[in-house]
C-alpha cells in the first residue's frame, strides 16, 4: 500500500518492465511455533493497526476466534490438539496469515492490472483500489489466505504491514508479540535465527524440528519454525505447496487465448458498428420500460 513504486518487483496483469535500479533487502517474518503461547496479541495488534473492526461472533466449540480468516481478520491463531506419538499430547498453535510467497500464486492469477504487487523486499501486497473482486487470487493461493469482502467486493489479506516496513518499522504483530515468537528482519538473518531455534528444539527431543520455507512457491517471506517439520499437516500447513496448475494454464495458454478472444470480440463489435451503425432500442421496448 505504501511502498514506493520504485520498489515494485512484480505487478499483476502488467507487461511493462518493473523498475530495477534500487536494491532492497529481502525481508522475512519468522514465526517460532515452539515459543508461541497463542495469546492472540498479534491478532489484536493487526486489527488495531489496520483499523479493522470485526464482528463479535460466536464460540463454536474452540479457542479459535473468529473461526476463520475474513476481510477483517488478516491473521488468526489456529489451534491443533495432536498426538504425534501415543500419549504425548501437544497443543500446536499457529498464527495463520499470508505467507508472502516469492512466487505468489495470487499475483500470477490476478487479471486486474496493479491489484496485486510484489515489492523488491518480498512483500506481496494487494492494492484494493485496482481490485475487481473476481476472486481469482483466492483460487491461486496455495495457502487459502485471501478473503473476499461482502462490504466492498474486494479481496483482503495480511500486508506484512508494508506501510510500517516502508518506514523502517517491524510489522504490528511482531512488535506486540510478548514472547518473541514472531521476529522480523532480513531473510538471511531469520534463517540463521531459525537454525539456532531448530538446534535447541532437537536438543529437547524434537528430532524433526525444522524450518518451513517451502520451495514449491519459491520460498516464503513468512516462515515457521516447526517442532515437527516432517509433518506440516499437524499445523494445517500444506506439505508441498505450489501454484495450482489451473493458474499456470490460465497464465500460460488460456490467458493469451482469452485476450485474443476478447480482442476479437472488440474488433467484431467495431466492425458491426462501422457496418451496421449503433444498436437502437425499438420504440416498443422503450414504452414498456417507461410503463414499468
Amino acid at each position, binding site marked *: 500500500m505504501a511502498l514506493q513504486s520504485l520498489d515494485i518487483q512484480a505487478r499483476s496483469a502488467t507487461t511493462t518492465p518493473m523498475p530495477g535500479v534500487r536494491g532492497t533487502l529481502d525481508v522475512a517474518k519468522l514465526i517460532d511455533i515452539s515459543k508461541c503461547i497463542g495469546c*492472540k496479541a498479534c491478532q489484536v495488534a493487526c486489527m488495531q493497526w489496520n483499523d479493522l473492526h470485526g464482528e463479535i*461472533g460466536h464460540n463454536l466449540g474452540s479457542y479459535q476466534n473468529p473461526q476463520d480468516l475474513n476481510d477483517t481478520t488478516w491473521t488468526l491463531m489456529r489451534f491443533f490438539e495432536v498426538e504425534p506419538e501415543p500419549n504425548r499430547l501437544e497443543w*500446536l498453535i499457529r498464527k495463520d496469515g499470508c505467507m508472502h510467497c516469492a512466487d505468489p500464486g495470487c499475483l500470477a492469477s490476478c487479471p486486474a492490472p496493479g491489484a496485486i504487487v510484489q515489492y523488491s523486499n518480498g512483500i506481496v501486497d494487494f492494492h484494493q483500489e485496482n481490485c475487481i473482486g473476481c476472486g481469482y487470487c483466492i483460487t491461486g493461493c496455495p495457502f487459502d489466505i485471501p478473503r473476499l469482502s461482502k462490504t466492498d467486493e474486494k479481496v483482503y489479506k495480511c500486508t506484512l504491514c508494508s506501510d510500517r516496513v516502508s518506514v523502517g518499522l517491524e510489522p504490528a504483530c511482531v512488535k506486540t508479540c510478548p514472547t518473541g515468537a514472531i521476529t522480523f528482519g532480513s531473510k538471511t538473518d531469520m534463517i540463521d535465527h531459525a537454525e539456532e531455534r531448530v538446534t535447541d528444539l532437537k536438543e529437547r527431543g524434537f528430532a524433526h524440528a525444522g524450518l518451513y520455507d517451502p520451495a514449491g512457491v519459491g520460498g516464503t517471506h513468512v516462515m515457521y519454525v516447526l517442532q515437527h517439520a516432517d509433518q506440516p499437516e499437524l499445523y494445517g500447513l500444506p506439505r508441498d505447496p505450489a501454484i495450482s496448475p489451473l493458474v499456470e494454464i490460465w497464465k500460460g495458454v488460456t490467458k493469451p487465448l482469452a485476450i485474443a478472444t476478447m480482442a476479437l470480440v472488440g474488433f467484431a463489435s467495431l466492425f458491426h458498428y462501422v457496418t451496421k451503425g449503433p444498436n437502437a432500442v425499438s420504440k416498443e421496448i422503450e414504452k414498456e420500460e417507461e410503463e414499468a
Partner: protein
Amino acid sequence: MTNHWVDIKNADLILIMGGNAAEAHPCGFKWVTEAKAYRKARLIVVDPRFTRSAAVADYYAPIRAGSDIAFLAGLINYLLSHDKIHHDYVRSYTDFSFLVKADFGFENGIFTGYDPEKHSYDKASWGYQLGDDGFVLTDPTLQDPRCVYQLMKAHYARYTPEMVSTICGTPQDAFLKVCEMIAETSASDRVMTIMYALGWTQHSQGSQMIRTGAMVQLLLGNIGKPGGGMNALRGHSNIQGLTDLGLLSNLLPGYMTLAGEKEQDFAAYLDKRSPKPLRPGQLSYMQNYPKFFVSTMKAWFGDAATAENNWAYDWLPKLDKTHDILQVFEDMNAGKMNGYICQGFNPLASAPCKIKVSGALSKLKFMVVIDPLATETSEFWQDHGEYNDVDPTKIATEVFRLPSTCFAEEDGSLVSSSRVLQWHWKAANPPGEARADQEIIAGLFLKLRELYAKDGGAFPDPILNLTWRYKQPHFPSPEELAREFNGRALADVTDPKDATKVLVKKGEQLNGFAELRADGSTACGCWIFAGAWSEKGNLMARRDNSDPYGIGQTLDWAWAWPANRRVLYNRASCDPAGKPYDPSRMLVAWDGVNGRWGGSDIPDFKPDSNPTDGMGPFIMNPEGVARFFAVDKMADGPFPEHYEPMESPLANNPMHPDNPLARANPAARVFKGDWDSFGKPDQFPYVATTYRLTEHFHYWTKHCRSSSVIQPEQFVEIGETLAAERGIRSGDHVRVRSNRGHIVAVAVVTKRLRSLSVEGKQVHTVGIPIHWGFMGVARNGYLTNTLTPFVGDANTQTPEFKAFLVNVEKIQTIV
C-alpha cells in the same frame, strides 16, 4: 515474588503449578522463553488442564484440582528419601535442627489443639523448646526425634508415590519424572523457580499449598538465589500495591497488623509485634516495628498523634474478627450492614456464590460504586433475564455510580509482582464526568469531616484529626500522595551512633526506612515504600535499563521495595562464609577488605555483618532462618497436610479415611448457614475449576471490542471421555449445575482435560472460564460465581474457586 520477572531468565528449571503464566501473564512469560532459549532451561507444568503454558512446556503432568499439597508433599518425601537436598543450605539457613515442644503432635489428620466446635485450633503446643536464655534449643546432629528435620521426615514419609498417584490422579511415572527433574536443582549451580498464582491461593487450603512449594524450594536451597524463589504472579497491575498499602481488613500499610479488640494496651500491641531474637546473634528486624507504626500514625494524624495519646492508637479500630470479603457479605446478608462503598471491585462477579451476594446487596439501603465501567455489581438490581434474574421492584437498594478514571487516565505508581513501583503518566483525559479515585474519596472525606465538625458524632476524633495537607484539598495529587507514603523528617534525624551527625534535615524526604524513628520525629505513610521519593526525586520514574552484571539486575529502573532490593533473602545465595554458591550469577557477596556486603543487588542483610558473626539470612524472622515448621503462624497446622477440597469427589481423605474431621481442611472458613450449600458427589460427580483466559482481563475487557472479537462467548471445557459419556459434542450448549445454581455455555470438547484415576475411580474435570457477565459488548453470559462455594482458606479467607463439584448436561435446544 521473592525474586522478579526479569530474574526468571536466570532459572535452570521452571515449575509452573497453581498458575498458568502463559495464559494469565503473557508479557512476563517472555522471561520463561528467554530462560529456555538462552539458558537451556526446562519448563515443567503441573495442572489439571493442559494449558497454554503446557503447550510450550518440556514436561506436563496432570493433577486433580485441589490435590497440590499431596503432590508437593510427595516431592518433599522424594527429596528427603533420595537425599536430594542442599545440605549446606538447610543446615545453616533453616530450622532443621530446632527442637519442637514435646506436646506438639499430629494424629489421624489433626494437629494438637483442635476444637471441632469452633472449627479452629488452639496453637499453644505449636512452638519450640526454649532454653532458660530464651533461645530455641537445637540439635545440630539432627538426631533428636523432636527436631524439625525428624518430625518433617516422618510427616512426609506417608506421601509415597503410590499415595500421590492415588490422591492426585497423576500417573506414577509422570510424578517421578517431575521429581527427578526437580531434584537436580539441589546442586549449588542449578536453580529452580516456582511460578504460581490463583491456582494455589483459591483453595480452602491455599496458603498451605504455597507453603509446601516454599518448603520444596528451601530443601533445594533455591530461595534467595537468582533464578529461584517463590514467585506469586499477581493478576491485577496494582494488586501488589493494594496489599503493600494494607487494603485488607486486618492490615495496616507495609504488612503491619491491626490490633484485635483484646489488645487495648499499646505497649503490649507493639511488644507482640517486635519479637526478640530466638537465636543468638540474630537481627530480628521486626524489632523496629514501633518506628514503622509511629511514623505511620504521624503521617495520618500529624501533630494530633503524640506520645501522650500513644500516637493516636486508640483511634484505630480494634478487630473483633477479620472482616474479609466473605465476612462482609455474610454480615450484609444477615442485615447487619446497610451501606456499602464499592471501589474498583465487582463483587457480584468476583465473590463466591452469586445468589448470596445478590441477596446481600438487596438488603442494603445504599451502595456507592466507584468504577470506570458499569459493572455487574452496579446493575445487580436490573433484570437481565437468565443472566441476572431479579425483580427490581423488590430491591430497595439505592445505587450511586461515581465514574472514576482508569489507569491510563491518571498519573501515579503501580506496584508490579516484582515489587517494583513504577511511575506512569496519563495518556488520555477521562471521558465525561469521570474523576480520579483520590478526588472522589477526598470529596467524601471533606464532606464527612464537615458534617462531623458541625453535628459532632459518637466518635469524631479520627475523622476530625486526620491530616489533610494537600494543596488542593479536593484533589490530592498523585505526587503529594507518593511523597507522603515515602515519608519525611518532622525534626532533624540524627545518626544513632553519633548524635551530632544529621542524616536528614527537618522537612526533607526520607531516604529509606532505616531513618524512621519511634519518637514522632518522622512521618511515613508506608514504611516499605520509604525511599521511593527521596530528596533525589521520584525514583519510581527512573528508566535506566542498564544491567551491569548481565543478570537482569537493573537497579536504576524504577524502584523496588524494600530499599530497592530486587531479590529477597539474597544473603542466602552465598554460603555461610559469604561466597556466592554460583559465582556466575552473583547477587551479593561478602567483601572482606571493606567489611561490607555488596554486588548486583542491595543486600537483604545487615550490610556490615561479618559472616563469622553467624547472622542468618532470614532477618525478618526472629530465628534468623527459614521455617519448615511454621510454629503458630498458620491457622491450619505447622506442617502442610493434604485435605480434600470442601466439595470433593471423594467421600474421605485417602490420607485419613477413618476420620471425617480430617476430610477437608479442619480449620477452613465456613459460615454456619453455608454447610447445606455444599454439593455431594452423587449429585454433582465432576470436579470443576474456574480460570482466566488470555484474551480477557477479569470482567473489564468484555467491554472492549477487540477482546470480544477474539473471545466472544462463554464456554466451558470438557474432556473427550466425559463428553462421550454425556453425548456432548464441541459447540453444543450445556448446562453446568452446582448445588448453588447453574450456568449455560458452549461446550469446548478437548483432549487437554484428561480423566484421572483417583482412588480407583475415574474423575472428570470441567473447566470454567470466568469472563462473562451481563454488561459490556461481548455476548452476555452467566457470572460463573453462580456456581462457586462460599468457603474460604483458613488463613486468608480466599474463596475456593479452583475446586468444587458440578454436574453437566447437554441442552437439546436453546430457546
